[in-house]
């Protein structure tokens, strides 16, 4: 609690100090306004002097510590010049590198090769996905996307290592003070969340399932579902969310999604590396159930992303799921 600056000199503050045992009330009784003011100014001078002494001592100690490192002083003296020289050198290097780049949009550029033609012309026929981008990132470049999903998994694990409070008193207190500053059970937020959360979930599922037909896919749909989970938590609290999404569900969903995803992709890798045909029917492009394994990969990626987003929020908020 912050106190006003003129509170200190009032009668009540002295009573409070006396009750708390910080000063002798009777000895401190002012005989006149002047004396009290003098006392106060004396006190202020004393504290100022003490502060100055402390500061001087600290500076002396710092000097003692840094004196052997004399070259640091020299370095600091020339820091500006050295930084300017390094910046100019970096600038020249980058400009030279840019001048060596091929011109933008030229047909002979190395980026304009047969790969892009293949993606655009044969993408729908080979992957069965109407959305070329999804067919590209989940099928042709599946290895890259698998790495991205692993990065998500590792990031969530690292945040868990740093922030997860396992058990004991700390866990209890962190759970109790979770909504210490926040207004609890805000009825306006709850009513709107009642209406919005199902809409958000349905929209996220739509984006995931339509990943191979329209813009969207596992990453964006998973982010939408994670945002819906976060909205639900901030409206109703962790107790109600824990009924359908707790640590156990999180572990099972995340690990199994990653495992299924990797097994789907290893099928592609095995078949591609040995020059075998794809035996999974692609279906007619444009249907929901088509394009082979891309639909399932989208679902697994979506689960992974939704779990990661929710886990980040929960871990940063109270150190547990």
């Amino acid at each position, binding site marked *: 609690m*912050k106190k006003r600056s003129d509170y200190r000199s009032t009668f009540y503050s002295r009573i409070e100090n006396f009750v708390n045992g910080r000063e002798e009330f009777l000895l401190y009784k002012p005989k006149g306004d002047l004396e009290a003011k003098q006392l106060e100014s004396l006190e202020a001078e004393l504290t100022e002097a003490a502060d100055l002494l402390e500061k001087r001592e600290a500076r002396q100690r710092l000097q003692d510590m840094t004196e052997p490192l004399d070259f640091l002083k020299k370095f600091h003296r020339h820091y500006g010049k050295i930084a300017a020289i390094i910046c100019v050198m970096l600038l020249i290097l980058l400009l030279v590198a840019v001048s060596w780049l091929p011109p933008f949009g030229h047909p002979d550029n190395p980026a304009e090769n047969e790969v892009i033609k293949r993606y655009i012309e044969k993408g729908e026929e080979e992957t069965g996905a109407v959305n070329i981008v999804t067919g590209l990132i989940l099928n042709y470049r599946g290895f890259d996307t698998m790495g991205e999903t692993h990065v998500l998994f590792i990031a969530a694990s690292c945040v868990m290592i740093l922030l997860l409070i396992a058990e004991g008193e700390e866990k209890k207190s962190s759970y109790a003070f979770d909504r210490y500053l*926040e*207004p609890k059970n805000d009825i*306006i*937020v709850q009513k*709107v969340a009642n*209406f*919005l959360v199902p*809409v958000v979930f349905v929209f996220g599922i739509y984006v995931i399932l339509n990943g191979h037909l329209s813009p969207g896919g596992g990453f964006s749909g998973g982010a939408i579902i994670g945002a819906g989970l976060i909205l639900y938590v*901030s409206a109703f609290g962790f107790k109600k969310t824990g009924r359908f999404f707790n640590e156990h569900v999180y572990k099972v969903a995340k690990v199994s999604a990653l495992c299924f995803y990797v097994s789907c992709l290893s099928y592609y890798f095995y078949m591609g590396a040995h020059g075998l045909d794809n035996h999974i029917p692609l279906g007619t492009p444009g249907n929901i159930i088509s394009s082979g394994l891309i639909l399932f990969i989208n679902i697994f990626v979506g689960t992974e992303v939704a779990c990661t987003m929710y886990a980040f929020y929960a871990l940063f908020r109270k150190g547990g799921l």
Partner: protein
Amino acid sequence: MEWVRFIAAVICLAFAAIMEIIAIYGVYRFRFVMNRMHAAAIGDTLALLLGALGLVILKGLSWFSLKMILVVILLWMTSSISSHVIMRMELCIDEESIDLERIDM
């Protein structure tokens, strides 16, 4: 008829752009949370409605315009709720925001 519709749509979109500029200016101009929230709310409500209205007039009544109206309804709900949550948080944690009369420029 086509010209009238086009001009109405352009007027709506121009007003939406002006409101958005005012909102952005206000967000950077003010220093106090609630004044900035008020400025941002102009962009979230009036500019959004005018922009969507202009596009609906331009396109005519179709599934596209129905989707635009749905977007406006959802964003009006969510933006007001987020403002409400920010306001309550501000009142909870900032001791100085009790003096509601102040206008910090």
